[in-house]
């Protein structure tokens, strides 16, 4: 199994990112949280693309090559030392949302191949709703993934990642 896992990793490295066949069914992740604080305060906490290192406890470091400009790429480091590269696709300060996508998959971070996500802040009568929604395909390049690389495992891991961030945004804002 480990051997296969490694050969999968090598294949991921040899073939340009994202071109490798991923799972056939996209998986949805959608979480939100209500925060007792005004929307502009909440937006202030998360609006910088690399501020994820300050508000998501699962992220220990973040570096970006171009701030909040289009196509800016951030490299985030997770608690286990694994890194992921993500690109800013849309940044809408007026709409208080931004969209990003995974550009360099790392199965040791999350067993996902493509991942696109949007994080948005909405005023709800003085309170604020933060929604983080995304979609991914599992990275396993075959029809029958082992449990640790399944859709369900990836979904659970990504959900935990989103929720850790959302709960901490709430803590920081309230």
């Amino acid at each position, binding site marked *: 199994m480990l051997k296969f896992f490694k050969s999968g990793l090598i294949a991921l490295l040899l073939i340009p990112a994202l*071109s490798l066949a991923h799972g056939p069914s996209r998986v*949805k992740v959608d979480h939100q949280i209500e925060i007792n604080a005004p929307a502009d305060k909440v937006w202030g906490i998360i609006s910088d693309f690399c501020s994820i290192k300050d508000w998501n406890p699962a992220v220990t470091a973040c570096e970006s090559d171009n701030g909040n400009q289009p196509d800016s790429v951030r490299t985030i480091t997770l608690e286990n030392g694994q890194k992921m590269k993500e690109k800013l696709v849309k940044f809408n300060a007026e709409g208080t949302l931004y969209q990003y996508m995974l550009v360099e998959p790392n199965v040791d971070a999350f067993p996902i191949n493509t991942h696109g996500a949007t994080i948005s802040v909405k005023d709800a009568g003085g309170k604020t709703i933060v929604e983080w929604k995304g979609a991914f395909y599992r990275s396993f390049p075959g029809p029958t993934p082992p449990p640790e690389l399944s859709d369900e495992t990836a979904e659970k891991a990504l959900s935990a990642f989103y929720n850790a961030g959302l709960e901490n945004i709430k803590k920081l804002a309230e």
Partner: protein
Amino acid sequence: MSYKSMIVGLLSVCNLQTQAGTFALITNQGSDNVSIIDLDQNRVIATVPAGHRPAGIAVSNIDHRAYVTNPESKDVSVIDIQNRNLIKNIPAGDGPVGIALHPDGSEVYIADWYKHEVFILDSRTLAITSSIPVGHSPSGIAVSPDGLSMYISNRDDNNVMHINIPERKIVATIMVGKAPFGITISDSGDQVYVANVQSSDVSIIDSRTDTVIVTVAVGLFPYAIAHDQRGNRLFVTNQRDNDVSVVDLASFREIKRIAVGEYPEGIDIHPSEEFVYVASWFDDKVSVIDLKTLEVINEIETGKGSRAYGKFIYSVED
């Protein structure tokens, strides 16, 4: 039996067998079923079970069936549209996704995402009779109206293969954009359109020469394409822009974006060429676009994770 009663009898049999109308059949990935939408009323009139995480669909106006790919249960569901029930699930490779029918209804073509081949299913016996090796991760299939040619998009090879159907032979391989997915052929058969997910554009192929004549930039991560012959336009779903690009085929340019639900996938056109229907996977709904005004005029809630990847509109005249 009198002549008259025979005719009445025959008519009632016809009525039993074919309810006239136009219907959209929408695969719901998260509900493991297919929603049947009556397009005269724009509402779901029935839900039919399919396999696990249904994705692709091809409907036949000839045998009144829908053929649905289920990549996670690795089979194809055959659905009786008129009786609104599942006839059978047929095992089909490792990851069936793209699916299309021969225009005479005799054969169904199924692209296997993992095995890199196209299976040929005999629609009469419901047996897979042969397969054709193609490129890596074949994802979309379009069949020419004359039934002689099939075009396959190979996602991981960035190309499209032209297969001669009677000879079961690859006759051309055409390089296109990055990660080609949804593929559609014009009603006249002279052009083939393919959505390139990772280069966010559409390659337009002249089928007489099998060469790309132009590449048109569209939205982020385009997925599937509907061709509007009368309006000489394409409608392209942009998964990550949550909209549909309208491409004018006279100027080969994108002329408008129409906002729909999130992660729009399958798209197909009403036979009247008055409406286009778009399934939005993230939002579990189908948007109806009026082709005169290019505006969304209705939204229909479906099952979870509506995909409808393929030709999903079924129509029977009175």
